[in-house]
């Protein structure tokens, strides 16, 4: 994998995950008790042996930079190669940003400096644990210009709505990509993950930006389906693209199934994240916890059911947290009740208060807000 570099770009709009994206970009949204969304794709790249990874940012990327630091947590604090965070050179106002190719075009220097021949390009809102080696091997052997990773859809949930449905012909050659569709069960959903030569990427950047087009999939790939050999390759395992609060909620809840917990976090490699100095979670005499996952640093004096607790959450006596996702350092006061809810970081549910949503419509308590 010495000759493969990784590129992570912004493939989704912040708006879909409001209010979780009020102060952070999608890549930086917390997930799974102690991770951020970007951890999954970044760890997948590192576990595959890709040690040159760039993260192209657009807006609200400060928390992402705080999270990634020098890449140490992913072993990417390297003298040669390593992690590169590439912010926009100008600040984009709402309508100015039109696609990943615009970001790439601002950092051509970076691409020229890299010694790798191939590039794996991925969006930043994927929850996955992938080994890219088979896709890269397939790409080389099939003599494809571009390889698109796809997921054969297993359930009717809208994880891949709007990603594009791939129609393939012989030898997995892509014949058509239909973007305005929600791929149905058994169909192939495009994953915003592409393998190509760096040289081709540079060509696409030049060709598209000169024409004032900036969308990687729409302009760069679909626009060249006739000229280039584009192939498809299947990705395996638990996989989602988080583009709504509903999906955010349900994919977190999926982690309460031990088989998914074991698959997502351990297979094929570990998911890395920035570590924190938290003691193990402490259960007191009156704690009752069932069907939940809990990160370190929590103190549980009350009842927790079917929930995901991030680091340092405090559940006081008599409190009851049910079917909820509680982010870092939030506090649930004595005898308070939280149900079908997402509490953002350092939220506070006062004693005896109730904060409740509905199963299909979980309610969100914003960062540092109190009820």
């Amino acid at each position, binding site marked *: 994998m010495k000759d493969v570099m990784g590129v992570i770009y912004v493939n989704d709009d912040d708006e879909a995950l409001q209010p979780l994206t009020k102060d952070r970009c999608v890549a930086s949204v917390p997930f*799974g*008790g*102690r991770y951020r969304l970007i951890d999954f794709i970044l760890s997948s790249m590192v576990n595959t042996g890709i040690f040159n990874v760039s993260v192209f940012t657009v807006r609200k990327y400060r928390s992402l930079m705080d999270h990634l630091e020098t890449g140490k*947590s992913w072993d990417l604090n390297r003298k040669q190669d390593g992690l590169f965070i590439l912010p926009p050179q100008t600040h984009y106002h709402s309508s100015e940003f039109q696609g990943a190719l615009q970001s790439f075009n601002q950092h051509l220097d970076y691409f020229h400096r890299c010694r790798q021949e191939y590039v794996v390009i991925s969006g930043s809102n994927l929850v996955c644990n992938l080994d890219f080696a088979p896709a890269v091997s397939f790409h080389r052997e099939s003599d494809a210009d571009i390889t698109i990773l796809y997921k054969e859809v297993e359930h009717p949930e809208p994880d891949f709505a709007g990603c594009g449905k791939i129609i393939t012909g012989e030898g997995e050659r892509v014949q058509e990509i239909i973007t305005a569709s929600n791929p149905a069960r058994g169909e192939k959903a495009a994953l915003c993950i592409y393998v190509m030569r760096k040289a081709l990427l540079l060509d696409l950047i030049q060709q598209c930006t000169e024409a004032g087009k900036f969308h990687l999939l729409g302009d760069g790939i679909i626009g060249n389906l006739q000229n280039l050999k584009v192939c498809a390759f299947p990705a395996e395992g638990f996989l989602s693209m988080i583009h709504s609060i509903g999906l955010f909620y349900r994919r977190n809840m999926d982690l*309460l199934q*031990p088989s998914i*917990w074991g698959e997502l*976090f*351990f297979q094929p490699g*570990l*998911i*890395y*994240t920035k*570590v*924190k*100095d938290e*003691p*193990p*979670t*402490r*259960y*007191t*005499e*009156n*704690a*009752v*916890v*069932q*069907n*939940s*996952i*809990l*990160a*370190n*640093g929590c*103190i549980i*004096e009350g009842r927790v059911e079917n929930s*995901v*607790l*991030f680091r340092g959450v405090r559940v006081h006596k008599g409190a009851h947290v049910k079917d909820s996702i509680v982010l870092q350092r939030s506090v649930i006061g004595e005898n308070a009740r939280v149900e079908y809810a997402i509490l953002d970081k350092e939220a506070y549910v006062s004693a005896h208060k109730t904060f409740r949503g509905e199963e299909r419509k979980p309610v969100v308590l914003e960062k540092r807000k109190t009820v």
Partner: protein
Amino acid sequence: MIRARDCVAMLLAGGEGRRLGMLTRELAKPAVPFGGKYRVIDFTLSNCTNSGILTVGVLTQYQPLILNSHIGIGIPWDLDRKDGGVTVLSPFVDQKGGEWYKGTADAIFQNLYFIERYDPRYVLVISGDHIYKMDYSRMLKYHQEKQADVTIAVIEVPWAEASRFGIMNTAQDGRIVEFEEKPEKPRNNLASMGIYIFDREILQDHLRVDQANPASSNDFGKNVIPQMLQADCRMFAYLFRGYWKDVGTLESFWEANMDLLQDQPDLDLNDLTWPIYTVNPNQPPHYIDPAARVKRSLINEGCMVFGQVEHSILFPGVQVGKGSVLRDSIIMSGTTIGTDVLLERAIIGENVIIGNGCYTSSPGKELIVVRENSIFPDNSVVESTLNGEMMGLRGEKK
């Protein structure tokens, strides 16, 4: 903040800790895992950082590999410093040949060159096998105020136990007038915690005198402190109030772990003003099954609990099968416990496999201690994998 060169800490981490039995078979005592996440030495190292003592020499010779790789250049404790920081000091061969450390005082003597490099006014001597939180900068302030040559931290122990400790008899103003090692009839209950602050020059002088004495066993408690008392040094006792535990025996090691499980623990690991640092593992949040029941316990990340865990501590990555019951036990990293297992008062080492239906059977209340990588087939009795004497269950104290 104390500047690096005001005070250098020398942390004695060489203890072989035979009394901790197989826990120390491959580890130096300060490297023994503790509290679901830490190693024993993390407490003293974190105390140094939190006290602003940023130059620390760690003296070690017994099985130092885990300790060396644990400490590294001190990043977890914020002790990776341009000026000072933490340095592991092992014995080495020079042109005169190699020499191992003979006693605690000899270990410091052989590393005087390290102290001199920083030219400090004071030397803090601490030991890596105690569990406590202490602000050494306050003790140093006391040392300065008393214009002491030596200050020894003491703690009030129950009168009934005083005869097991080194007892300081003090005058009104705190000056130590007498030191009695394990007195039969203690006249005082102020026990030495093995924490010393020395004026550097006085320490140097007395270490040299001690080295010149062939009858000396080169130990601080046995030789150097009495020698200093005899020489009429200004020695003061600094009274520490708070949680403190020597984890030198299996029983006390177990107790110190269990002390963390109180609803309001005396030693608060969640206190953000005095964090205990260690190397952080990378594991997902732990999972608690619908059928599981956990109370009065510490559970680290990466665990999967399908059974019942009561008054116990699980290190990262422990699995507890359905129908199993754990009580009063400590389970170290990576251990897998099958279904319908019963463990009581057990200390299980790393990466042990305990088959379905295994159980402990301790008619007395002896602790069961299982060494790392052990395997128990289904339905077997979980027994200690080393004999009683090696585990040193006697109440013996240093």
